[in-house]
């Protein structure tokens, strides 16, 4: 049963990706902005412009261009970046790990922070503590990630300069890595001082991304927990003499977590989207930062590769969330 669901989702994912490929290709050609126009010299004549278009393969009819691109894309060849002069696949492979490490760190922080505060709020329900938590959470919900980023910059890089502001690692330490998963690799190889430096570079961007998501988790999970705490099975457990914390963690949380998990999955895709601005502010070398330059320069092959990659990430996240929710909910698992 699960296999059929997964196969169905993968087939749908492939169809979606094909649709995304067509849309992004057409959209880029329709939206104003010609990469060749941005680099031609003032003295260039029509022949020079034609030569540059030919050099970048932009002189062929649109259908031919699409066919060449999609044929390559199927085999993993997304062409060569106009601005970077290297293969798009190579660029994406080198930048994706930075964004993945950042996004996963932000997700972990958001879940721990949001989950912890939601549980605390449930334990303090009906008290002034709950009111304070709700008030603070409303602020967190109202402030977008890039405002958090700027606020964190002012706080931890200027007022109390304890955290590095830009980049992913101190340039003097960025040596000896076999992969681009710097944080993971440095932890696994026991280079803890290096791992600490990487983590310190990640604190501000991680918080900027995590705080809005944590607020969403707090609101939803706390509401679900409060509703669960009124159910008969919780009452029964209470009669059995369970303490309040045990009631929340052992009885209410298991039933309240489903909707939160599903929403967190959806919100995680927004978090990945949020890396674009946050990576820019912190000069963090991930695919979000790369995407801004690609769009500014109308680097068609790179934008196409990036959009497909973002699409793939979103699809994988959604499949992952669906499967996790199904595995946690017996009704969905066997339904």
């Amino acid at each position, binding site marked *: 049963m699960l296999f059929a669901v997964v196969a169905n989702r993968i087939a749908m994912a492939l169809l979606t990706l094909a649709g995304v490929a067509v849309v992004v290709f057409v959209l880029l050609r329709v939206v104003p902005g010609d990469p060749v126009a941005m680099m031609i010299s003032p003295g260039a004549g029509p022949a020079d412009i034609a030569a540059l278009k030919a050099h970048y393969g932009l002189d062929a009819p649109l259908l031919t261009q699409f066919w060449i691109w999609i044929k390559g894309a199927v085999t993993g060849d997304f062409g060569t970046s106009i601005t970077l002069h290297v293969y798009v696949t190579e660029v994406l492979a*080198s930048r994706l790990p930075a964004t993945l490490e950042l996004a996963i760190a932000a997700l972990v922080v958001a879940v721990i922070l949001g989950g912890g505060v939601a549980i605390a709020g449930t334990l303090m329900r009906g008290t002034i503590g709950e009111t304070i938590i709700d008030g603070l959470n409303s602020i967190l919900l109202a402030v977008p990630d890039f405002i958090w980023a700027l606020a964190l910059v002012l706080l931890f890089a200027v007022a109390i300069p304890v955290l590095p502001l830009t980049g992913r690692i101190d340039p003097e330490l960025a040596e000896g890595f076999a992969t681009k998963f710097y944080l993971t690799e440095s932890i696994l190889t026991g280079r803890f001082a290096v791992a600490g430096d990487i983590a310190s570079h990640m604190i501000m961007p991680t918080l900027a991304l995590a705080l809005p998501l944590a607020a969403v988790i707090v609101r939803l999970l706390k509401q679900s927990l409060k509703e669960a705490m009124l159910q008969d099975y919780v009452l029964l457990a209470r009669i059995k003499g369970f303490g309040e914390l045990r009631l929340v963690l052992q009885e209410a949380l298991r039933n309240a977590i489903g909707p939160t998990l599903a929403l967190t999955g959806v919100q995680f895709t927004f978090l990945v989207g949020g890396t674009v601005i946050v990576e820019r502010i912190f000069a963090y070398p991930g695919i979000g930062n790369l995407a801004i330059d690609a769009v500014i320069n109308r680097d068609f092959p790179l934008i196409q590769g990036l959009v497909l990659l973002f699409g793939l990430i979103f699809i994988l996240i959604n499949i992952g969330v669906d499967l996790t929710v199904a595995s946690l909910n017996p009704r969905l698992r066997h339904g």
Partner: protein
Amino acid sequence: MFNISRRQALAASGGFLGSLLVPQRFASAAVGSTLNIAYNVNLPSFDPNIGPSSVNPTIQAIYRSVFDQYIGQKPNLSFEPGLITGWGWNDDKSKVWLDVREGVVWHDGTPLTPEDVIWTIQREGKPDGGNPVSFIWAGLGNFKVDGKRITADVLNYDPVIFKWMAFLTGYVLPKAYYEKVGPQGFEKAPIGTGPYMVDAYEGNAYLRLKANPKYWGGKPAFETVVFKFVPDATSRVAEIESGSSDITLEVPYEEFDRLKSKAGLKGVSTPISDIGMIFITNGGIMDDKNVRLAMCHAVDKEAIVKRLLRGYGVPIATLEAPEYAAFDPSIKVPYDPALATKLLAASGYSKEKPVSFTIQTTRGFKPKDYEMIQAVVGMWRNVGIDANIEIYEIAKHFELRMSHKLAPAAFYNWGNAIGDPTCSTGFAMFSKSPHCAFHSPELDARIGPLWGEKDEKKRIQGWKDVDRFIADNGFVLPLIQYVQPILYKSGLKVTPNETGALQPATLVSKA
């Protein structure tokens, strides 16, 4: 099996936590052997002669750190020997000669040869090679080498060819190495003859350079230079204010004023070879000379500089900034709202019955760009011009400009680091240029002969005459020359560069 003792675990945890919250370097005047630059753009590619980054003026400081140009340029825009120590024409200007500097080695230790120079010029001259200004380099051919001297035939006479050798895509590349590693290999491990060697690079994050001990111009002041790519202006301000970087540039003028007097920091601001201008596109309402001249006379550029740019700008009347070769201070387009009103009245327009059109502008691309256009539109409204502001992206601007489809008025900037009139007035106003917005046969007739003028004095005077003709007809509305703000630790000595390229090897040293 990976074993770790309790003691090791504790030590590792301590190291991890310690490095996590180590206080960053507070703003202090002290500068070590490493110079950290919070730079305003990313470096997309290491090939200085091909692709969009090769014609991006902002990146040139990085290229000049790793590579050398045929001819060098001083901070005041004048020229000096580079890898070419002497150059010139023959009597009838049908040939050029270039003397290649001796004793220069590439970063891999191999010597620079005249063949490297010839190969680079030939590579850049190929029309399908990806060099955006290939037509410049294609003007030379039939190269011959005699010792250190190269001679070449002039296939297309261009009086500015030697100035281009100090300008965009004028970098000498290593023939043997490039042919060995190929374009992709060169991107991964570039070498030049410049003062710094590429040590480590992470796109969108940083470029780490090490001093070239064998540099022909002497070893640079700093052993290591790190360009941090920080495109966000707020983050650059935070970088210099927190002391994480030693120097930064292109910060908001308000922040520049605030920080330049802060303890441990200094600031310098210099007019650079970049201007803000309003393109006027011929056709429709812009064919009315009265309207064009009224647009020009209605703008109080002094007020814009003083009130909006906090004094950081130079009002200009032509496309030639004061440092350029064809600058003529006698050409003036005074702020005269009464004259503007009179001109409009002659064409039947007034405040009650204004002339209407659209003006396009970027927002946030250059300092106060949108605000400047808002001010201009306000000044126009006072004389009877009702302009509607439309914001556009850089990419859209270039596409519209190339296809001659800009709005009647369009704000953008124009750089000219070699200060030659061909690269400012010439390419902006000659209708054969893809970047010209106002197509005028009368103007073309005046500009045309100047492209091939062999008498330098006559050539420059010719361009001055063209600038006067443009001003008299209001074919374009030059606004201001930009001023570049640089903030740095007081332990440094910084020489501002009028091209705007902040190259660390020659312009930054310890105080």
